[in-house]
């Protein structure tokens, strides 16, 4: 019996280990570039094991960190407020949608999921947000549009559908109001679903560049990802320009290659650190049920 299993087990694990390496490899590459010295990079190219351990990229990035610290602040503020509010808003609609005895259940499902299949498009949304809601260059534009994401509503509703109706019923017989049931019973029971969706929402906010690319021009409101994007362009511009400079200028080497990667690490790090807290609930919380339940 056992000998029959070893072959396939070995094969499956080998496949998964290979893919695991593919998942981690790019991160390692970026980390080691960020610790390489600029001279080594220009001479030998990026390498997976730094030829010398050099902190100048981080020193350069963090030397006058005003911009970066500010970008961090914006990203953290948006992610924290966004995640907390969004979680409440999404749970608030997911719960009634999970209730068979709610009169508007089907109408509400249609209302939410229709937006997954049809939308007004970029231009009308842009016009609405900038010309009519006047949200351009405010912190709100980075938070409000993502608060009620239909996909997350679908996940959480599917999870809540698995909560036995008898629990809710017995609370109703005890005379508890719907609000009480929601906050005291449903939310604690839906913890795995909430944790999973919270992680997705957090990632959505932390990793977003789209909203800032469209609506943010004010320096003080630039979040981390958008700053990273601008650095990408800026350094492309720098390297292009340096090709046309006299050769002597090239001695003045900024750690631009490694600094870029150091920034990427600083931007990606917090999310990787956050994951273990959600991991426990992960697979249990990720239920996707039928759209029309």
């Amino acid at each position, binding site marked *: 019996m056992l000998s029959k*299993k070893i072959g*396939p*087990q070995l094969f499956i*694990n080998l496949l998964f280990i290979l893919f*695991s390496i593919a*998942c*981690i490899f*790019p*991160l390692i*590459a*970026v980390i080691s570039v960020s610790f390489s010295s600029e001279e080594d990079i220009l001479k030998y*190219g*990026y390498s997976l094991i730094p030829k010398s351990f050099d902190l100048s990229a981080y020193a350069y990035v963090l030397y006058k960190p005003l911009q970066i610290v500010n970008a961090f602040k914006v990203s953290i503020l948006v992610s924290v407020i966004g995640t907390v509010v969004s979680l409440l*808003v999404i749970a*608030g*609609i997911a719960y*009634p*949608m999970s*209730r068979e005895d*709610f*009169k*508007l259940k089907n109408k509400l499902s249609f*209302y*939410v999921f229709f*937006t997954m299949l*049809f*939308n*007004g*498009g*970029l*231009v*009308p*949304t842009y*016009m*609405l947000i900038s010309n009519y809601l006047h949200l351009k260059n405010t912190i709100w534009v980075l938070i409000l*549009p993502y*608060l*009620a994401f239909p996909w997350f*509503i679908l996940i959480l509703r599917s999870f809540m559908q698995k909560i036995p109706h008898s629990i809710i019923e017995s609370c109703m017989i005890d005379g508890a109001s*719907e609000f009480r049931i929601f906050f005291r019973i449903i939310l604690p029971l839906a913890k795995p679903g909430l944790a999973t969706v919270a992680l997705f929402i957090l*990632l959505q906010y*932390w*990793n977003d*560049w*789209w909203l800032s690319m469209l609506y943010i021009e004010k320096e003080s409101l630039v979040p981390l990802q958008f700053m*990273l994007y601008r650095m*990408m362009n800026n350094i492309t511009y720098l390297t292009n320009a340096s090709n046309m400079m006299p050769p002597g200028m090239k001695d003045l080497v900024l750690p631009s*290659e490694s600094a*870029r*990667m150091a920034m*990427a690490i600083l931007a*990606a790090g917090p*999310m990787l650190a956050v*994951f273990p807290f959600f*991991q426990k609930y*992960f697979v*249990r919380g990720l*239920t*996707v049920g039928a759209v*029309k339940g």
Partner: protein
Amino acid sequence: MNNRQKGLFSYQSYKKNVQLGILAFPAVVLIFIFSYVPMAGIFIAFKDINYEKGLFHSPWVGFDNFKFFFSSSDVWLVMRNTLSYNIVFIAVGTLLSILFAVLLNEVLSRRLVKGYQTIFFFPYFFSWIIVAYMTYSFIGPYGVVTSFLERVGIRFDFYTETWIWPILLTLISIWKGLGYMSIIFYAGIMGISQEYFEAASIDGATKFQMIRKITIPLLMPLITIMTLLSIGKIFYSDFGLFFFIPREIGQLFPVTQVIDTYVYRMLKVSGDLGMSSAVGLFQSTMGFLVVLFSNYVVKKVDEDNKLF
């Protein structure tokens, strides 16, 4: 007595419905503002927007914006890129993630399963901008791969060779989404009652038979939902993937330009609102029709798997 009870009951049910409605209210309002109000804005697609006259007083031009878009020389290229990338992404991505989910379920060590889940999820944690940096660290002028190739005597400039990009973009897209998708399917498999497998095992079914006769059929509704939802987005592309990864390199546009990046760049250069919203309306309507059609086909094949 009976009447009073009934009255009390309906009052309670009324109260219940109102309270549940109040809970849903914030989301309903937000969805209304950010999704439904823009839908009303699709009329922009039929107007020649003039900034001085404003949105509502600009002249109507019928389908001119659409005509203009479809007569531009780039349109078929952009359309071809969008559709072929999406078809490959959906087909390869779905098949691989189902395969991964099924195999993950076969791994005996619980600890390894946990480990794989965590690691497979890594790529999903990075924004497209960070993935662009990673890509650059591999294939940029000083990149790991580029300098390795140079050492073995091959000079290869990834950012000017067009033929490699369809392969690269597919690899990157699969790399980023595979963990996420396979965990959704894995969660689906976890939801299948263990009893089926036990019964099958008593009847002497092999692993392979169980996968074919139990896992896949019971996973089918989920597979259908996921596929139909991605088919609905077949005229859209992951903007970040096509915008950041190949960078602003015009030479690569023939293989990297998709509808979304095309419209964005066009909007940046010309500011033609009418035409851009015409394209947006086209994407949305086509996607919607494709979903309706696929759902119709699914319904014909198996009533239970339909999306709506």
